[in-house]
């Protein structure tokens, strides 16, 4: 098992040889620098891919909405309009940056930075595959809850600093909505912590299996409800419809980023789309088996044994399969998020609070108690294991 990207890279002989050579060449221990370089390259790749996914997210959003509303969607820039997001980016860069006259300039500049930093730092713990996890922190999910609350502060400050009434209303609504829905999300992740016996995403995923009945969503009835609580909370946390109150364009103009123009606006949008991906990834890792591939294909042992491939290639094939498994599930959830947005009407602000505090939070607490009692009574067995025991008992009983 390789906890982080560096340990994964370090398994390969070539890497070890290269480090040894460099050590000799420079005459000092360069391992620290090599670690830094590996992480830097990994982080840059992840950020690059995420930025592309964020950009493609805007494209997918338009295409899917067009599909749902029987329109064409963007189809001019590039094949099927797929380069539309690049055109949007160029437009963002070329737009004039306007500071509102009464704005608090420092906080106005700080807000998008906080949003981007908060979202990018969460990427460190997202388990893309068993090798490509930048940091398998011991406190993984707890860290994620903490650092993503920076986005709430950013939304509030973005709304506050512009000194515009629309922004202020959107910022207040956004911040209170984000913190409210953090409660059911935290309590639901607590149930997964109970089941997996660890706070790190490594522990989350490694205690699940590749096949659906080994996933935590089907572990027992409570986690099944918990997944939907988590998913609804996730929609609200990322300000997606039907919870897009903070940026409700028909009542608040554009919410907390009304006064933002150009690149700063683009950065807010980018942060939002990356956050959706991250939270989908968390949902996948916590409930849907994460990067696990069925029949233990992910470790790559089977390729080595059956096909006679070298161990290193088998391992890498396994990694690619794991990555594919994770990304496929995450993008499927991403699709559902967009689908929900274009299907449900926006709800009112009092309904947002009612759903959070009167439905989701009690439900999440009920799930928490349920899972605790379930684990105590059944000794950590899932419902399928219980059934199989039952059938085995019945089968042996019938035999007599």
């Amino acid at each position, binding site marked *: 098992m390789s906890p982080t990207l*560096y*340990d994964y890279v*370090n398994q390969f002989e070539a890497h*070890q040889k290269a480090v040894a050579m460099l050590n000799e060449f420079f005459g000092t*221990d360069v*391992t*620290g620098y090599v*670690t830094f370089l590996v992480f830097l390259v990994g982080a840059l790749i992840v950020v690059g891919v995420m930025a592309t996914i964020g950009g493609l997210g805007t494209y997918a959003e338009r295409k899917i909405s067009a599909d749902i509303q029987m329109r064409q969607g963007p189809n001019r820039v590039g094949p099927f309009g797929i380069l539309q997001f690049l055109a949007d980016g160029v437009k963002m860069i070329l737009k004039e940056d306007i500071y509102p006259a009464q704005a608090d300039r420092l906080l106005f500049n700080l807000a998008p930075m906080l949003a981007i930093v908060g979202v990018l730092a969460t990427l460190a713990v997202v388990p893309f595959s068993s090798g490509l996890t930048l940091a398998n922190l011991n406190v993984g999910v707890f860290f994620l809850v903490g650092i993503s609350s920076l986005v709430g502060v950013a939304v509030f400050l973005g709304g506050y600093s512009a000194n515009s009434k629309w922004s202020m209303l959107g910022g207040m609504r956004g911040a209170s909505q984000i913190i409210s829905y953090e409660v059911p999300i935290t309590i639901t992740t607590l149930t997964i912590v109970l089941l997996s016996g660890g706070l790190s995403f490594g522990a989350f995923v490694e205690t699940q299996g590749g096949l659906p009945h080994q996933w935590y969503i089907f572990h027992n009835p409570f986690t099944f409800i918990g997944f939907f609580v988590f998913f609804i909370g996730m929609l609200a946390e990322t300000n997606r419809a039907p919870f897009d109150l903070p940026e409700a364009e028909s009542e608040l103009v554009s919410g907390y980023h009304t006064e933002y123009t150009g690149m700063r606006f683009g950065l807010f949008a980018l942060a939002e789309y990356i956050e959706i991906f991250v939270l989908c990834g968390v949902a996948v890792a916590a409930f849907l088996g994460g990067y696990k591939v069925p029949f233990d294909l992910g470790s790559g042992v089977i390729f080595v044994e059956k096909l006679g491939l070298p161990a290193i290639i088998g391992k890498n094939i396994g990694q690619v399969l794991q990555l594919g498994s994770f990304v496929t599930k995450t993008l499927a959830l991403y699709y559902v998020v967009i689908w929900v947005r274009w299907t449900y009407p926006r709800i009112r602000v009092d309904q947002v609070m009612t759903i959070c505090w009167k439905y989701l939070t009690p439900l999440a607490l009920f799930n928490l108690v349920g899972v605790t009692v379930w684990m105590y009574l059944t000794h950590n067995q899932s419902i399928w294991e219980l059934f199989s025991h039952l059938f085995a008992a019945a089968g042996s009983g019938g035999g007599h």
Partner: protein
Amino acid sequence: MQDHVEDNGANMISLPSYLFLSFIMFIAGLVVMVARKNIIAILLGVELILNSAALNFAAYTRFINQNLEGNIMSLFIIVIAAAEAAVGLAIVIRFFQLKESVHIDDATQLQA
């Protein structure tokens, strides 16, 4: 697990560095509490002081007895700081509703 030298032995960062930082935070908190007249600003000072205390506990745990009691203490300091902030700010808001002011010198009566 890793083949390079673990560097968490002796190095330049030791207990006094942490004590110095927490000292700065404590003094800053004190200055804020004494010199500011806005009640919310005073609460900011209180947060700074509580943080410096919690940091000290964690630092002593690391460098002196290593049995995590200090970490538990820091955890409860953080918990109590959150409770304190909640109640304190509620009082500030109620005070503002009554007196239209957040100036500490306006708080001269125990009842509204």
